[in-house]
Structure formats: structure tokens, C-alpha cells
């Protein structure tokens, strides 16, 4: 990640004030997010999934 990449990401998120305040911390947040994306679990085939209604109180009984 270079400074321009972080600046672009901060601008897209509206976090220019944070970037100016503590670029190092914002960089860590950005890197953490990229890590989550890279490690994202592979989801199953669509046909194996029920209709997508995200009602978590029902999820616990699925």
C-alpha cells in the first residue's frame, strides 16, 4: 500500500480528516480490511442456499 492508494481510499470513504490526523492508524485500518477480504471464506453454490432474507433471529434456528 502506498500513500496515494491510502489517500484515494480515504477520499472515497470521506475520511480525509482522519488521514490528516493519523495516517499511520488509518493505514492499519485499511490493511486490516484488505486482509479480511483476502481471507474471505469461499461460499457455497447458490443453488444450495435458501432465499436471502437476513433475519438473524431466524438464523439461529436455521
Amino acid at each position, binding site marked *: 500500500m502506498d500513500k496515494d492508494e491510502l489517500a484515494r*481510499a480515504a477520499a472515497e470513504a470521506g475520511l480525509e*480528516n482522519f488521514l490528516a490526523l493519523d495516517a499511520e492508524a488509518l493505514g492499519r485500518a485499511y490493511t486490516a480490511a484488505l486482509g479480511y477480504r483476502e481471507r474471505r471464506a469461499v461460499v457455497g453454490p447458490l443453488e444450495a442456499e435458501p432465499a436471502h432474507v437476513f433475519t438473524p*433471529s431466524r438464523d439461529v434456528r436455521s
Partner: protein
Amino acid sequence: MSDLCFQDWTQVRAQLSAGSLTVERYVEALLAQINAHDGEVNAFLTLCAEDALTQARSLDARFARGEDPGPLAGIPYALKDIIDTEGLRTSCHSAIRAEHVPAHDAHTAARMKAAGGVLLGKLATHEFAIGGPSFDLPWPPARNPWNTAYFPGGSSSGSGAAVAAGMVPMALGTDTAGSVRNPASLCGIVGMKPTYGRVSRRGVFPLSFSLDHVGPMTRRVGENATLLNVIAGYDESDPGSANVANEDFTRGLDEGVRGLRVGVIRHFYAEDIEAQPVVRDGVDAAAQQLARLGADVIEVRTRPLREYIECNRVLLVSEAFAVHEKWLQERPQDYGALARERLSVGAFLSAVDYVQANRTKRALCAEMNTLFKGVDVLITTSSMDETCRIDDAVEVTRTYQRQSRAPFNLTGLPALSMPCGFDSNGLPLAFQIVAPAFAESLIYQVASAYEAATSWHQQQPTLGAS
């Protein structure tokens, strides 16, 4: 230190009804404990001493008239400071909300008030239930009563510390990735994260809509079950609230575990995130204790712990950023450094990341629920490490992530943390008991049997010795 401060509050309640103890004396004893020790523990952000004493005298008058003012009548409590209290500052432990005074009680606060509980004050939390322990906020972080140089866990840090320190017999915390159970574990008390939807979150400042839970924190299992009786129930104003029948969560406390099937998710702490030996041995010993009590204990396997934790984290930070976006854009300087950084992770995740995490969540819920075809309850670790010093920021961050609590936020399953020993520094160790959705009574049944067979809950910290 007054023994009254550490007494089982359900027994105190009986003494109040019988007239052998007054509410005023009980409240005074707890206030004395707070005044003597909160300077080192930092559990309270706001103390309501005068209001509490006024309410105590009023309750004493009602008891004297033979009235029954409710199941919690005369029992003091305190609330994590993200739970709204009418007319009383609810700061979220943040400069951003330092002057916020809610117009209404949260659903849980209203229930405890209606049941006759006496609010003693509002408790420290990690900022907005995510940023802590922090030393750059308007109030200092809570410390562990067993040794105030050590971390008390979080984010419901003040709730865990205050209950363990005998300042209140019960408190509420909130739990999005383990924030009731972590301080319960590190402070040596009982913390329940009920089933998603069991307890209303109305009036609780959100961290993550799909993962937030409110839960009771007490020193003993029976106290915890009795408090859940008060705060559980359907609330149509919380979209996540489950319309299920109320029940008595204390009904199985004396039934023991003979014949129950207990599944140990051992790979969580023996393979996926290797726990320190003292932690691993503590959970294994708890499993053996349950076996000696007559349970059928077997080892079970599910998906790797990291998959649950990472999925939980993507949902949590995505939803948390949605809550905080405007403030983070306009006034980032008003957050502490930890909350600012942790909340901003969600800014850099995409809609696709969020949707895929929800799809993964469904798969992981199904996977976890499959385990209950073969067992009645599950047990596993809570934290993976001995408690570290609160001023060791690197170690706090490292150990905070090494935990097995988040899977039960993701799946919404009820999970309870309770003490199972002490580490090499004399700080508490803990394990978790988990049950199918809406089977909290079964958890209390197992926890009560374990508690009755052990003496961990009888230990109390020596305040002033750190």
C-alpha cells in the same frame, strides 16, 4: 470489606423481604465499597448515591407495609454506559457522547427499574464498546479487581470489574464479539450472552445490529438466571427481538448433569488457536468435572475457529462503520485512537464483502447447529491466554483477538462464561457453556452443577493489595 457486598443477592432479597436487613443498609455497604476501592478499579463513570439512598428508604417503607415491590426490589445494580438511562448521562465512555442525557430508559433499564432494582450508576466500557482499554478518553479504563495492574477484559469492562469487586451484585453488559463474556472471564464472574433476540437492545447504543446482545453479569449462576428472568422478553421495537414465550431460567438449577451429553470443541483451543497450557488444562479439567458429575462428555468438531471469528469481524466492522460514518468523517479527533482505528476498518470493506459474510454466516450457523444433533450442550475456552497487564498495549491487542467467544455472536447461540480456576498470576480462568438457541435454562443447569461441585465462585479479590 463487607461480607454483605459479596453475598448472593437472591439470599439478600429474601432477607429484605423478611425484614432482617434494610435496603438502606445494603446500599450503604455497597456505596462504602465503591468509595473505598473505585479509585483503583475505575469501574464507575457516574455514581447515583443520593438517588439510590432515597429509593432505598422508599423501598424499606414498602417492605415495612408488607408490599412486594418486585423481584429485584432493593437489589442494587449498575449498567454499562452504552445502555440508556432516563435523565442520567449515557456517555458510551466517549467525548462524543460526554454530555448525552437520554430522554428514555433502555428496555432492559426500564425492566430492572420496574422490578424494584436500585440503580447505583453507570459503568466504564471500551469507547462505543470497541475502543479500549484506552488512556486518551475523558475517563480512565476500568482495571481488574484481582490485580489492578491487569486488564479486566472488555468491552463491558466496568461491569465485570464492579461485580467482581463487590461494588454491585449484578450488572448488565453488551456482547458483540464476546464483550460480556471476556470481562466475566477475566474478572472471575458469570456472564451470559443470551440467544440473539432473547433480550431487547432498544435504547442500547449499537455497535453491530446483527451481532449485538445484552447480557447479565453476576458472581453466581443462580443470580444470573434470576436476572435473565427479569430482562428477557419480546420487544416489538427491537427488530431483532424474538417473539418467544417467557420462561423461568432457574427451573433446572438443581437438576444436575447426569445423562446430559456434553460436546467439547477442543480443536478451537488445542489446534485452531493454541491456548496457553494453563487455559487448556482448565477447560479440560472442567470437562472432566462434568464427566464425574455424570455427564457423557465427548469431543466434537466444527469449522475452524478463524472462519467464525473473521466472518463475525467483517459483519461487525461493516455495521459499526455505518453507525459511526458521519462522526468519523467530521470529528475523528473526538474519538480515542483505538476506537477511531477499529471503527474505520469497515470503511474499506465493500458491499460484496458484507453480503458474502452474511452468506458465510448462514453456512456457519447451520454447521454449528448440526453439532446439537449429537450433544445437548457444548463447552470450550473463552480466552486463550493468561490475563495480561493493562499497560501492555501490544499484549492486550494480541490476546484480545485470541478467543473463542465470537462464534456464538455469529450463530446467535446462548453462551455463558464462568470461572474454572486461576492462572499463574492469581487471576481467574474461565470456560464457556453453549446451548441450542433459546435453551439458556440448559446452560444454567450445567453451570449450576459445575458451580456446586467447585469453589472458584467463593474466592474474592483482595482489593487494595495491588
